[in-house]
């Protein structure tokens, strides 16, 4: 009796995971890219995220939307990964406010031409330099979520998220639109 109930529950867990993996697979891969620069470590992280998601569905009780749940679990897993990695390598992480206050190191090159590839690399480098709470907001914004939805995932008010996004937009505008001329 109990065994049949457990098997049914596991089947539900499998089914939910399969649906979510199909719907969010690409977003989760992008998320892993935001949290890990090394290709091998990134694949490990991505697998950890998928596994955590599958495990998490054993206790998903509908307290929030499936999308919010997926992003919470995935970002929490990625933040744990960052904490673990920081113990083994010294890497100073920063906040959006600090990044906004300092010049973009890539802008120093006079011949810098911001093509799409280069812009993507710089965007990724910027994201990977952020501490997990700010990184999560940036990634969710880039995934196209609204401030209220980001706030629900992060545990912040929409106002606080909007402030962060405003700061991010000004940093990105400075880095992408002014090309190699902004070295200040």
């Amino acid at each position, binding site marked *: 009796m109990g065994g049949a109930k457990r098997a049914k529950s596991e089947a539900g867990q499998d089914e939910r*995971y399969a649906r979510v993996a199909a719907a969010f697979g690409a977003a989760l891969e*992008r998320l892993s890219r935001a949290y890990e620069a090394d290709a091998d470590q990134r694949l490990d992280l991505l697998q950890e995220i998928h596994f955590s998601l599958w495990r998490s569905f054993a206790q998903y009780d509908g307290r929030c939307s499936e999308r919010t749940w997926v992003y919470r679990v995935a970002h*929490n897993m990625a933040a744990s990964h960052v904490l673990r990695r920081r113990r083994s390598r010294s890497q100073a992480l920063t906040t959006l406010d600090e990044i906004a206050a300092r010049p973009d190191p890539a802008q120093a090159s006079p011949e810098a031409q911001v093509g*799409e590839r280069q*812009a993507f690399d710089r965007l990724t480098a910027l994201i990977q330099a952020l501490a997990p*709470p700010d990184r999560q907001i940036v990634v969710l914004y*880039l995934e196209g979520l609204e401030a209220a939805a980001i706030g629900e995932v992060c545990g*912040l008010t929409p106002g606080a998220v909007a402030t962060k996004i405003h700061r991010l937009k000004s940093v990105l505008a400075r880095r992408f639109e002014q*090309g190699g001329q902004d070295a200040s």
Partner: protein
Amino acid sequence: MPAEPSDLDPQKLWQSQTTEYDPMTIAVIHEKARTFQARIWRRNAMEYAGCVIAILGILPAALHRGSWMMQSGGALIIIATIFVAWQLHRRTSGGTVPEAGEPLVGFYRAELIRQRDALRSVSVWYLAPFVPGMALLLLGRWFQSHATHRSLGTDHLIIALVAVIAVLVFLVIWLLNQRGAQSLQQRIDEL
């Protein structure tokens, strides 16, 4: 022709990334679940094995017939080893888990606080338990058990040296952990 910087929409740029990996299949996930369980079992087995080896190492002192101090010291170190192993297990396996679906700010803060508290209180749960046993062991060696192949003066000098090294090691462990706790506190304050 490369896109003009002003044309670049960060959201489009981010979402246009090509995917490299297929999602994991259910069979692979189940296999990973089995590996995960095996890893937890292995980790526990390693902890217990480490504990047993440490106890076996101190057992001769606990069975030393000529010195009640060394016997008591050895017994206390064995108790301390078991206590510290339990604390390590409790502190590394407890806490928040990503799978709980908590918002990141709370999860991240809780994780940093958990790590900070573990480092900050290292003197209480990691160092202090060994102090009575080690003190009794050294006192037993000093007063009740001498090495027969060297003079008493040399023997005492060696015991004193061991005591000084032990104190220094404890001090370094404590200092490193306090520094780690301070750095974690800074990150908590930044949240």
